[in-house]
């Protein structure tokens, strides 16, 4: 290694666990040389963030470094072990020689100070500037990170800015002292795809211009590969594979890496099912239902991914040329929306009358056909979720026609409404907050059955719940578990079982897999496809993720600022997008 900058060797970090300690980072060694960028990829619980945090001694209080060292070479032949330097010295390094940006731009800035003040504070902590000089510097950096009207941003509070702007402020703060290393921990995960693209470009540009090294952490291999020179793949606290980007992407040696690369839905065609990690490892823990939680269960014996096993068996055929979703089947419409709008009052006057309105949906025309999946894509604030809530009649549209099976939903009586509620169900994004923590899986799934008096007999009801659990690939012993005992993927399975209880015909999947790791995501997507064909379900699949929507959808509607800008057959839309916005979105998708 020439010109080394940072060298992590044998790092082990552990957390207290019910019995003994859980090794969240296990014997990790990584090297980074000056001017290069290292990408660390891994799913949640892989220890990638903890590795990064331990570089700056920012680990959570409960965590403990058991062994290992982090050598930093500040130049002129000196070597510092960052884990052993006194607090005073590490403070001089933080934000100065090595700085860090975090995942959540929404919460990473202090809400009570202006953005300008926060950047000035960072500058004046490490450099001997007067306030005026520091302000000049801060404005210079605001321009450098391409913030619009830096003077205004300087005086703004974080809540007045968009997510992308906040992340730019964070970057300005991090680079304001010309660090030699910038650690970026999932800096684009919370952002829309077009903004993600521009942030990635910005980071790449800054790195070139100022000769910084970059440590870039993400769960998304495609994102990491946009900026990284070298890659390291982490899994359950260990580095399972590392190498230069080209070598690693071209010829991944490790089964986990290959699984990770394969289980992301492809953009260019539509397979019938996605690869899962289980296809790549003989290890059964990845075949659902897995053990309680892969990240905690791993502490005893992490699965060892052997070197390059045989390629996955089972041909995965393409869906695209399947005869059953040809336009000829577009006749039987389930929902039909005409000129549908929804306004929300932003400001009301003294009498409670709206004086300023937000048009969340703007004259939406949309048909949803029986037995098909309509993909609804758009960036945050485009009105996707509002449309979902209108479809479920959780809110009423302000104007426009909204028909379900030919009948006007606005005029449904009590009886019709009850039937509608049974037929139309929704699965939400965050499986951590949509399940009642005090109800066991069994009582949660049987609740709609009790409410609609489907089975009066306890035994029958229990059997039905068992059947539902089996349908979502959970074993009967999940009946008595509580949400906190389930992993994210398992929770989402329970949520799906719950909505299936009433034999619905139509499901809205509102970002239903967005909060899940890619490997889990693939399993859930496969499950959804399977359930769809078995029960002849109709889906509206809402997401910001194009590759997922490509896999799931027969037709796609692209939304922007409350309007549907383009609708079309999925294949068609990906091959030749007609609207400029769709084209821009497609171009922003990072790919390997």
């Amino acid at each position, binding site marked *: 290694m020439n010109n080394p900058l940072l060298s992590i060797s044998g790092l082990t970090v552990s957390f207290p666990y019910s019995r003994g300690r859980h090794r969240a980072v296990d014997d990790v060694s990584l090297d980074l040389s000056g001017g290069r960028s290292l990408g660390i990829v891994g799913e949640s619980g892989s220890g990638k963030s903890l590795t990064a945090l331990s570089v*700056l001694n*920012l680990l959570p209080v409960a965590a403990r470094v058991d062994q290992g060292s982090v050598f930093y070479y500040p130049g002129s032949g000196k070597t510092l072990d960052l884990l052993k330097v006194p607090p005073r010295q590490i*403070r*001089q*390094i*933080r*934000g*100065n020689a090595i*700085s*860090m940006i*975090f995942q*959540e731009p929404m*919460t*990473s*800035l*202090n*809400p*009570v*100070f202006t953005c300008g003040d926060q950047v000035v*504070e*960072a500058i004046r*902590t*490490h450099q001997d500037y007067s306030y005026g000089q520091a302000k000049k510097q801060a404005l210079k950096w605001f321009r450098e990170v391409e913030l619009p009207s830096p003077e205004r941003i300087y005086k703004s*509070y974080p*809540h007045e800015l968009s997510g992308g702007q906040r992340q730019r402020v*964070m970057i300005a*703060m991090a680079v304001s002292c010309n660090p030699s290393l910038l650690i970026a921990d999932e800096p684009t995960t919370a952002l829309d795809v077009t903004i993600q693209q521009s942030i990635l470009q910005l980071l790449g540009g800054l790195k070139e211009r100022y000769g910084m090294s970059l440590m870039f952490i993400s769960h998304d291999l495609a994102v990491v590969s946009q900026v990284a020179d070298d890659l390291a793949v982490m899994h359950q606290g260990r580095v399972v594979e590392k190498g230069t980007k080209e070598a690693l992407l071209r010829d991944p040696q490790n089964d986990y890496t290959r699984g990770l690369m394969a289980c992301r839905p492809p953009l260019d065609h539509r397979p019938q099912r996605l690869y899962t990690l289980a296809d790549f490892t003989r290890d059964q823990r990845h075949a659902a239902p897995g053990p309680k939680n892969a990240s905690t269960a791993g502490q005893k014996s992490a699965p060892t991914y052997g070197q390059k096993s045989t390629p996955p068996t089972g041909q995965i055929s393409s869906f695209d040329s399947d005869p059953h979703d040809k336009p000829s089947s577009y006749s039987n419409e389930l929902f039909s929306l005409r000129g549908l709008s929804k306004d929300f009052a932003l*400001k009301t006057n*003294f009498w409670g009358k709206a004086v300023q309105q937000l048009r969340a949906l703007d004259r939406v025309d949309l048909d949803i056909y029986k037995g098909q999946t309509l993909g609804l894509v758009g960036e945050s604030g485009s009105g996707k979720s509002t449309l979902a809530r209108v479809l479920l009649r959780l809110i009423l549209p302000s104007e426009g026609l909204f028909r379900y099976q030919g009948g006007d939903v606005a005029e449904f009586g009590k009886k019709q409404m009850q039937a509608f509620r049974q037929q139309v169900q929704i699965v939400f994004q965050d499986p951590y907050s949509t399940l009642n923590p005090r109800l066991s899986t069994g009582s949660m799934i049987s609740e709609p059955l009790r409410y609609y008096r489907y089975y009066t007999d306890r035994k029958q009801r229990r059997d039905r719940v068992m059947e539902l659990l089996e349908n979502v690939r959970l074993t009967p012993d999940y009946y008595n578990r509580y949400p906190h005992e389930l992993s994210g993927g398992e929770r989402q399975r329970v949520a799906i079982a719950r909505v299936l209880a009433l034999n619905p015909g139509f499901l809205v999947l509102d970002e239903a897999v967005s909060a899940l790791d890619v490997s889990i995501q693939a399993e859930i997507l496969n499950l959804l496809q399977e359930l769809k064909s078995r029960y002849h379900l109709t889906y509206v699949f809402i997401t910001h993720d194009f590759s997922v929507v490509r896999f799931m959808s027969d037709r796609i509607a692209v939304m922007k600022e409350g309007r549907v800008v383009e609708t079309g057959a999925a294949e068609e839309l990906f091959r030749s997008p007609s609207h400029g916005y769709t084209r821009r979105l497609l171009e922003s998708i990072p790919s390997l």
Partner: protein
Amino acid sequence: MAQYFIKRILYAILILWGVATLVFVLFNVLPGDPARMLMGQRSDVASIQAIRKDLGLNRSKGLQYLKYLNDLSPVSYHSHEPSDYFYLDPDKYAPYTRLIKGKNNSLILKSPYLRRSYQSRKQVAGIIGQTLPNTFILAFSSIIFASLVGIFLGILAAIYKDTLFDRLSIFFSAFGMSLPSFFAAILIGWFFAFKLGDVTGLNLTGNLYEVDDFGRGVHLRLKNLILPALTLGIRPLAIVIQLSRNSMLDVLSRDYIRTAHAKGLAFPRVLFRHALRNSLNPVITAISGWFASLMAGIVFVEYIFGWKGLGYVIVDALNKYDLPVVMGVVLTISVMFIIINVLVDLTYALLDPRVRLG
């Protein structure tokens, strides 16, 4: 901001009207005849009738309510005819400014007229004016004591979480929260003023101003404030310690605190500049909420320490069925409550820019 302020004032007036109405209804459904209460045993029909007429008790309830509101309102309508129920009695409403003068009646601007005490025949406004400062000083000093000491101890407990100090402060605050103020008052009075009286030099009872032994002048006696304020402050102190500890712990685990550390700031700066301001909001809510409980607690504390404040007055008036005084004091306390709430909302906006009031 200005619009918000006006809105709040309008709401406050609405609330006040509600409180005034409630108080009126409450004291009108209570059994007992004030006139008879006033006269006691030695009553003859004629003088009772005279008193009833003077108090307006022979009028319909609706008319009584209108007059009651008219008396309370700073802008009020009055007749010039002495026999009229709404007669502009210069003795009652002075000083006033005439806004519009008609032939037989006029509209005037005055301070709210709270009637006279049935017992002492003194103006209720005067009685309150004399005692309100005492109550206010007592409540204010105990809240200040509770806030300053409580926030300080709470922050220390948060920093030294799970140490002996932290556990002691949690124990103390659980103890303080469950200690009734009338009992605490007796206990503290007995211990500090009676048992340790020679050491501390504190009196068991006393007022802020006292006439000296030679009757030559009135002297400020700040030391008489110490024990009642301490007693009254114990419960808010306990709450504030708990709250500021928990709020501080919550804030210290936030992402922006990690950012502050990642900037390379030293711990005191992270604590005082980045964490403190964010952690104060729930504490301020609690402090303002506690002001209400303080008003309830103050009744006992003032009585036990002989502190001539609103609490003392209201207990006295309730004993003697002195309705105007009770009504006046209740209204005064609600006004204070509303003012404090408006002030708290404005403090929020100062501390947290996200609460831009509109």
